[in-house]
């Protein structure tokens, strides 16, 4: 089932010093339920801008995008209800406890009120938050915060989950835990859109890998398909070849 459709999506920023900057330049792709869709690109390639347009935080300059059949421009609130957004820049409220954080985000994402308590209990147990559920976020370690952040992202049980460079700044153990969570969410039938510039992560996790560079989509397919198309084995080499050909 196709859950996310992106057609000719573009975003241009205007800067006094640099003029028009085409951060995303006509990107098209589709994502299916129960798969991990990887956006692979260097810093500044346009990954975050693309994902922010999907999350309705930025308005596309051109093109269109649909999440669960809803247009991101015409129905932003409905789109956001269907979507969980996680990134290194989405912080948590420091003065709320872990449990309050989950309750707050469940409610503001319009999760059925009578089921909020049970849903929070379920996530507290699943992510091992029970040990510190009454502790304020400002007093948690970075690993604990990461768990609360993931639980916050999925608390309203959205069918589409966006993870924008989720392992940036995490140690190896926490990064591996994050990967396990993402795999488990795929197994539940969620659509995962996962952006990274770490090749090994994309290799291990993604069912489909899209290579994005300079705001343009250079190639899309499974790892095997990329290998066949380029004749290279390692994703790093595949990526470099696409960038050279595309550049």
């Amino acid at each position, binding site marked *: 089932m196709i859950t996310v459709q992106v057609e000719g999506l573009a975003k241009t*920023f*205007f*800067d006094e010093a640099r003029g028009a900057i085409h951060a995303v330049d006509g990107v098209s792709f589709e994502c299916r339920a129960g798969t991990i869709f990887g956006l692979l690109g260097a810093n500044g390639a346009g990954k975050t801008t693309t994902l*922010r347009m999907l999350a309705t935080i930025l*308005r596309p300059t051109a093109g269109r995008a649909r999440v669960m059949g809803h247009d991101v421009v015409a129905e932003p609130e409905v789109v956001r209800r269907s979507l969980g957004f996680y990134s290194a820049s*989405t*912080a948590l409220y420091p003065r709320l406890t872990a449990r309050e954080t989950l309750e707050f985000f469940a409610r503001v*994402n*319009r999760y059925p009120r009578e089921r909020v308590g049970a849903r929070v209990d379920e996530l507290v147990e699943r992510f091992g938050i029970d040990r510190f559920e009454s502790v304020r976020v400002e007093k948690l370690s970075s690993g604990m915060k990461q768990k609360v952040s993931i639980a916050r992202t999925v608390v309203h049980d959205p069918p589409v989950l966006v993870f924008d460079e989720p392992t940036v700044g995490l140690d190896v153990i926490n990064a591996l835990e994050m990967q396990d969570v993402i795999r488990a969410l795929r197994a539940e039938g969620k659509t995962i859109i996962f952006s990274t510039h770490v090749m090994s992560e994309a290799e291990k996790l993604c069912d489909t890998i899209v290579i994005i560079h300079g705001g343009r989509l250079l190639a899309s397919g499974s790892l095997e398909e990329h290998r066949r198309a380029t004749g290279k084995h390692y994703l790093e080499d595949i990526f470099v070849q696409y960038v050279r050909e595309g550049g």
Partner: protein
Amino acid sequence: MVDGGGGVLGTLYRYELRMLLRDTRTIAIAVVAPLLLFPVLILLAREAERRREAVIERATYRYALTGTEEDFAYYRVQEALAIETFDPDTAARPPATFLHDRSPNPDSLVRAGAIQVVVEGLAADEYLRVRARELAERPGEDSAALAELAELPEVPVLRLHYRTDSDVSRAAFERLQERLEQVRRQQRDSVYRAYGLAIDLSELGGLEARNVATGERETGALLGVLLTPLLLFLMLSGGSIVAVDAISGEKERGTLETLLTTAARRSEIVAAKQLAVVTVGIVVTVVNLANLFVYIVLDLIELPQELAVSIGPLSLLVLLALYLPLTVLVSSGLLLISGWAKSYKEYQLYFLPLFAVVFLPSLAVLLPGMELGSAIALVPVAGVAVAVREVMLGELDWPFLALAALSTGGAAWGAARLTERALSTERLISGTELDQADLAGGPALFPRRVLRWFGLLWVVLLVSSAWAGESLGLVRQVLFNVVGLFFGGSLLMVRAYRLELRAAFALRPAPAAAWPAVLIGAPAALVIGVGLAEAFQRFVPVPEEVLRSFGQFLGAGELPLWQIVLILAVIPGVFEELAFRGVLMHGLAPRLRPVPLALAVGAIFGIFHVSLWRIVPTAYLGVVLAAVVLLTGSIYPAMLWHALNNLIAIVPVELGWVSEDYDLPMWSYPAASAGLALSFTLLWWTRRAAGKMQHVGTGPGGGRP
């Protein structure tokens, strides 16, 4: 998934307050500290004042004598000190002790603080020389002072030298001056007596003052003036505690992006934050007022003797209705700057200008003679401040109270919308503020800037009217406002945004049928305008003095006819049209459909006529003229219409054909309505021809939408 219902706003609000209450440092600094600090500061200030008074009371003042008439000074001072010591009036205060100090250079001792006052006795000629020299040393020639000097009688003069920066020196001077004045009066009386003219003032007739204001009105006048500025101050400082954290704080912490990716609507987020700002603002206000009350009970703050508050339930409701939009305006303003600011620091930078913009208008209530029944009712905040004073005085002038509430309510609505937009803008996330039009500038940017330009022109118009205004006289004021300000400003806009001149001023040929339509429509529209103005005056009567001052200002009777026609008909007809139906309409056209466009242009044109009683008829004329330009695509018919309108309105009266209070017969209104309908039917009929002519006249894209 099922919709969780309408509880998102409540959730956002509750959690906003919960997080604030957990911020103990902010609570301590913003709420608890003032509660503890204010009494301490008040006690310290009172103690300082008490000590200062005690020092002055106990002080022994040292004085010195100097000058060519030192003996004269000596005897006068001795007499003055005798009164200070023995006069029964001094029973209310202990007599001051003065000691005579001898010094060759007393002024330097005054400056050093060793003595407090020097009495210089000067012979008349010497005094004239000294004063003339002092006046010559001053920059600029003070001819009035020199003339006054020339008329002085030839008698010795006492000059007191003292320091205003020293409490003790000033107190010494004040006492000595008071007593020397008494000596002078006694001498005058003794001269009168010597000539047999001894008379006591009480023999000339009694004089007594009696205050007829009730205690309630006095209290109302006092509280009515203080209440709005005080509440605004407390609301701004209290609400700021939440506002700073609400958006700029969230941006700094990175929680705003998290919040914006939730299913909460932007309007819900803004409303919840606004409610939180209002709640905390009200709590801080109540806490501070309670604090004030405690000081009053503890006698730390003294109130006037006859304080009597009497506000009925109706007045209380009116006060609430006036303060509600003000509260929303304050909270929206605070949130707006929080949305604009990228950090706490930037918020603090924006806070002071916001404080000035919101707080200063409330001081309009302090201006002498400021009454609600004036254009002040249309000024947000200022209108409410003046309205509150009148309500406190028990005066309920409903139309103006409604206008005051509506003007502030309108500003509050605008600020709330701007805040919502600030939260929707990508600048919050992407850090960039520009878009294509910003970057390119020029004509694409003009539609977004045109209102700012006209806002600026309006402010210049207000300020120049307040400064020079009627003193300029009719001719110069019309030339300055209409030609200099409106047309000059329009030319500046054309230049700044590289607008195509013919398109910006709608300088396109008009279809032939437009001209008879104008000749029929202009007098017809004027008659209806007169009817509208009269209807408006039934609700809001024009005060006599406004009519009189407007008549005096026009003073057109002194001008020859051709000048009246030129100044009051031709110049406004040409240049106001170029500015309002030309550039303003050109700027607003891409953003508004035709009907709202005509209404907006008319309303702005009305507001530029400042006086409340002229706004309705001129706004109506503005709407009609905008419709004429929309239908003909050309400015020329509107120019003729406008000039004819002014001509017919003014010239017959000026030439004495009809009297100033001439009433139109009732039949003229249906006749005028029919004429106006005929005129617009003609214009409607010709609009297709107008469209073709625009195409020929300006090329593709040059026409007005």
